[in-house]
């Protein structure tokens, strides 16, 4: 489905992504792990079209999307959340999700009837909030949410875009440790039900091995390991990079 080939991104003289290449199949949940500064978020930015690569190729369902606009990518089915929450601070929680639905259903051109007139979409937004367990906060403004709830809302917004491929940049950072697995259960079951493929950036190795079908290890901008979580974690170079163990 997604095929990344020889992707390179330079910031000035600094090469952040150094010919990274990997594939993601349909219905697959892939974890992207790596030390700080490895370029994980940059990779997400490149795939979602937030920034453009220096060279290389990104294919999605056989279409070259390397330099496609974010709008085009979302239309094709690539959605993302943000590691540092990125919400519409002056709109209610409900409206944050609802605008995503309006956008994906092509309703944002409708300019005369009030948003509340679209009952079906409103109900769907409420359902998504319910699914993510924050429906009781639907009339609040994001600044009054806890850090964890903001994070969940951010993910819910990406989920609402009905993508085929969801990029989740640390969906559980900022969430209380005890709730992490609960949040992941919610996200993963929702993804599975919608038959989405997903790439998750995650630091918690327990979460990585519990939820992902496959693990990619990124370091200094290159993919150095790719395989089943158990196998990858056993590789010596991965151990050294991720856990600092000298073997």
């Amino acid at each position, binding site marked *: 489905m997604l095929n990344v080939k020889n992707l390179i991104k330079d910031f000035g003289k600094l090469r952040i992504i150094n010919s990274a290449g990997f594939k993601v199949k349909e219905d697959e949940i892939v974890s992207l792990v790596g030390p700080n500064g490895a370029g994980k978020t940059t990779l997400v930015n490149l795939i979602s079209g*937030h920034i453009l690569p220096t060279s290389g190729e990104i294919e999605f369902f056989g279409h070259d999307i390397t330099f496609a606009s*974010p709008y085009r990518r979302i239309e094709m089915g690539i959605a993302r959340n943000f590691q540092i929450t990125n919400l519409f*601070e002056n709109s209610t929680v409900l409206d944050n999700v*609802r605008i995503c639905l309006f956008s994906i259903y092509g309703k*944002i051109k409708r300019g*005369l009837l*009030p948003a509340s*007139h679209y009952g079906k979409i409103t109900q769907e937004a409420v359902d998504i909030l319910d699914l993510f367990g924050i429906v009781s906060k639907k009339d609040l403004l994001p600044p009054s949410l806890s850090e964890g709830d903001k994070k969940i809302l951010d993910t819910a917004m990406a989920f609402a875009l009905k993508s085929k491929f969801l990029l989740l940049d640390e969906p559980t950072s900022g969430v209380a440790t005890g709730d992490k697995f609960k949040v992941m259960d919610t996200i993963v079951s929702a993804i599975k039900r919608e038959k989405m493929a997903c790439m998750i950036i995650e630091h918690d190795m327990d979460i990585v091995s519990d939820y992902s079908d496959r693990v990619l290890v990124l370091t200094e901008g290159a993919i150095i390991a790719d395989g089943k979580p158990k196998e990858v974690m056993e590789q010596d170079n991965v151990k050294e990079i991720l856990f600092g163990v000298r073997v």
Partner: protein
Amino acid sequence: MRFIGQFLRPKSFVYLGIFIVLLFMPKVLPIYQLMLFESGLTFAIMSLGFNLLLRYTGLLSFGHGALFATGAYAVGMMGRYFPELYRIEILIPVALLVSLIVSALFGFICVRHTRIFFSILALALSMVLFALLVKLYDITGGSDGLHIDLPSMFGKSFEGMRRPEFLSGAYYYFLLCTFAVSTIIMLGIVNSPFGKALQSIRDNEVRAEMIGIRVRRYRWYAFVLSGLFTGLGGALWSFVNGHITPEVAEWVFSGEIVYMTLLGGFMVLEGPIIGAILFTYLKLYAVSITQYWMFIIGATLIILVLLLPEGITGGFVRLFSRIKKSEATGAA
């Protein structure tokens, strides 16, 4: 049913009441006051459009005078070159069409930037239009401007009638209805999915792009819509004033548009309407009191910014919420 239900709110009845009261204005107000009020109404239609950009899209335009002038000059030029089509039912659509073209062009250039860069670009473009209106004497009448005759309305000619009679008769009701319809349309726009998309862009451009909103294109749409309301205001104003000059395209008038909106308060939809009507009176009385009227306007602006940054309506909203709060704590 739900669609009708939306209008059955207490607020709607208050507005309906105000509308009915306004219908009797020509009977109550002396003609001079009525003309002032009418020009206030045209400014109100314009400031509705201006606020769509400022409040709902987060773009401050210092060049809206040019779009106002576009509407006014569309009427003036029609009168000069196509006198046989000088009917209000033709003039208004023509003014809207010309405003559409000009604001599409201006907007296309301006929305490439935001914040101060947007403001300055809008200002620069408006001064280009101002210069054209002044210099192309043979076409636009230059700084002498153009005289605006009374148009015929829906088959009824007003030839030979004096302007005050015209303004206190059919034209007043036409203007009032246009104003009401404009307000209802704007109310629809800002609460619609389209309006929500604009507010998303204002709040968080990056995220808006990442949920599939074409940010620049939607800013452009907002600019064009804003230009349509502003042009409509300009066209309607030209009949009230009877004479148009390039001054309305100059930056001073663009500044006054910003002032009106700040005076009324841009946080609520009603703010700019109130601001526009108040400003009309404020300016006139300041001019009649002293030749240093600009000093009065400037001083009020300073007081406004320091004490009521959210304008008159913003002040009221704050006052009411404070009263409510003290009632709540008093009860508890």
